[in-house]
């Protein structure tokens, strides 16, 4: 069960990273105003990095063995 949650989280993490890369690509390639593009891209990258870091920290701090006790099989 822990492996299942680990793989699920890995897929979620990878999906977020891929979506973020697409967003950064669009911001940097299609923006008409270079200064605004740089500002928005920086804001997005910084906040996303913080959220991803805190998300993975929270996930790895979860005591999955105790939380999943009722469903362990």
């Amino acid at each position, binding site marked *: 069960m822990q492996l299942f949650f680990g793989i699920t989280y890995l897929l979620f993490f990878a999906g977020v990273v891929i979506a973020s890369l697409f967003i950064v690509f669009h911001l940097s390639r299609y923006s008409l105003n270079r200064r605004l593009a740089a500002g928005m891209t920086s804001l997005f990258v910084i906040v996303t990095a913080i959220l991803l870091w805190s*998300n993975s920290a929270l996930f790895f701090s979860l005591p999955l063995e105790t939380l999943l006790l009722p469903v362990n099989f």
Partner: protein
Amino acid sequence: MPNHDFSRYHFQGQRESEIVLRVVHRHWFDIATHFFVVVLFVAALFGSLSIIPLLHPDALGSEMFRFVLFIQNSLILLIWLYAFLVWIDYFFDVWIITNERVINIEQKGLFVRTVSELKFSRIQDVTSEVSGMIPTMLNFGDVKVQTASEEDYFLFRRVPDPYHVKDLIMERLRTERDDEINRIVEATQRGEKFRSAA
């Protein structure tokens, strides 16, 4: 409408002699409705984080509270991505008026982007429309640019100050036609000089 320097805007396919006169995005009210939902959701998430310790003081530090934090963090991450997708859909939907043509760039999601252009010489008619209480109060509406073909037209949807956009296009259209008339007159005069020289 305050004067804004659009000369520092550049787009793909812009020619060397081409000058950007105006870049038009949809009115902020259009995106505000999407972001209102985002703000409500985020407020609900943070509100629940404040309420849980009040209702269950023992919950702080417990394993279940950490799990709730993880879920909420994941939701905030997804909302953050959603907010930027909405922003991209709004900000990259743009109409560019240059001294040579009108360009319509439509961004639909991340993977569909349509670019179409209309030269001033093909424009027959420009109509602006503001309809409804909120558009009237906030001064936003549609501008329809009609070509000679009934089926071909550009539609500036929910843009701010549509009357000014219409006036800008009409002014550019008059300049284009005056230039065309001058070119024809000069060509005619050159032709007459050639015949008289012969």
